[in-house]
């Protein structure tokens, strides 16, 4: 029995040359859920809405008035983007908490070179019995590796079939890139060529330097967006795993509630920050 935590998403298969990771599979599930929700709620639109249409109307009206309070009259332009970001992220975050996600999987044979460094070092220490603690000859290390390879050819590693999409850094970087590129797109769409004065400005040296800083700040926004979402969701998964490891029955419950709240807040923060930054970008009309 071991605590299974993996920083990166594991590959579970290939489509042609493209590796399919478990978080990519979960992303497809989330996309399917969103697609089905959209189809089910818009198939028979009517003035007197049926159950699912009225639920979606409540959610979208709430989002619309919220984003309208953030960006004012630009809300019509950016609402499709930020609302999709919100819905996608919240369903991804909550999907990662479903029972079965991260727990149902299969055991994969461990390739010898994938044995982690920690076990290698421990093995080496056992072999040398503390005689050479600091300096380990390379030959000896190799010998140990081959010895380990012999003994652990039948060892297996657990690979979950599904993993929360936002617990994978690739996904959050993609979302962050979408958000930051959309800021530039809406800027150029609204202000035209004048928008580029935000970055390249020769009117006076101070504004020129400010433009340089704006470039850096936009690049750092990608990193900050990506790591905030990834860090929160991944940390939540680690927290739940550790809690379930320490005390499997009652202890994880309050943390599950916390993670539901964190998933909602992070989706809200991501979309709100996107709209706030778009608003800032559109306000550069000097």
């Amino acid at each position, binding site marked *: 029995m071991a605590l299974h935590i993996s*920083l990166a998403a594991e590959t579970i298969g290939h489509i042609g040359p493209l590796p399919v990771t478990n978080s990519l599979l979960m992303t497809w599930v989330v996309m399917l859920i969103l697609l089905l929700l959209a189809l089910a709620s818009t198939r028979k639109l009517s003035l007197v809405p049926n159950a699912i249409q009225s639920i979606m109307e409540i959610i979208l009206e709430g989002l619309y008035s919220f984003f309208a309070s953030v960006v004012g009259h630009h809300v019509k332009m950016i609402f499709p983007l930020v609302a999709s970001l919100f819905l996608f992220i919240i369903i991804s975050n909550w999907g990662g908490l479903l029972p079965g996600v991260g727990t149902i999987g299969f055991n994969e044979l461990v390739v010898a070179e994938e044995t982690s460094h920690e076990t290698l070092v421990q093995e080496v220490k056992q072999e040398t019995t503390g005689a050479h*603690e600091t300096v380990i000859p390379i030959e000896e290390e190799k010998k140990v590796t081959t010895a380990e390879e012999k003994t652990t050819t039948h060892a297996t590693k657990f690979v979950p079939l599904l993993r929360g999409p936002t617990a994978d850094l690739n996904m959050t970087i993609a979302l962050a890139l979408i958000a930051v590129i959309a800021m530039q797109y809406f800027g150029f769409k609204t202000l035209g060529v004048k928008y580029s004065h935000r970055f390249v400005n020769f009117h006076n040296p101070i504004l020129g330097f400010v433009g340089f800083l704006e470039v850096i700040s936009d690049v750092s926004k990608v990193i900050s967006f990506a*790591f*905030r979402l990834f*860090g929160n969701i991944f*940390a939540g998964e*680690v927290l739940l795993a550790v809690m379930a490891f320490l005390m499997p029955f009652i202890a994880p419950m309050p943390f599950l509630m916390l993670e539901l709240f964190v998933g909602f807040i992070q989706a*809200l923060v991501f979309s709100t920050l996107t709209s706030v930054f778009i608003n800032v970008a559109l306000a550069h009309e000097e």
Partner: protein
Amino acid sequence: MDLNAWRLIMSGATIAIGGIFPALAIGMITAKAVEAIGRNPESASDVRTSMILGVAFAEAIAIYGLVTALIIKFV
């Protein structure tokens, strides 16, 4: 000391030190927000939105520390 011991110590130290200041910041932000809501209860929803944004910014620092600690521990 060997590498494993250093990893344990440093990953613990990273999140411990990196958690102090975001905790202080979140406390200050929330204290001020509660004060503002107490003075002007009608503006509660506006204040709450700004507060959550500010808290998210402050919390992001702790999360960077946490990700760094996890990377030190597991990678």
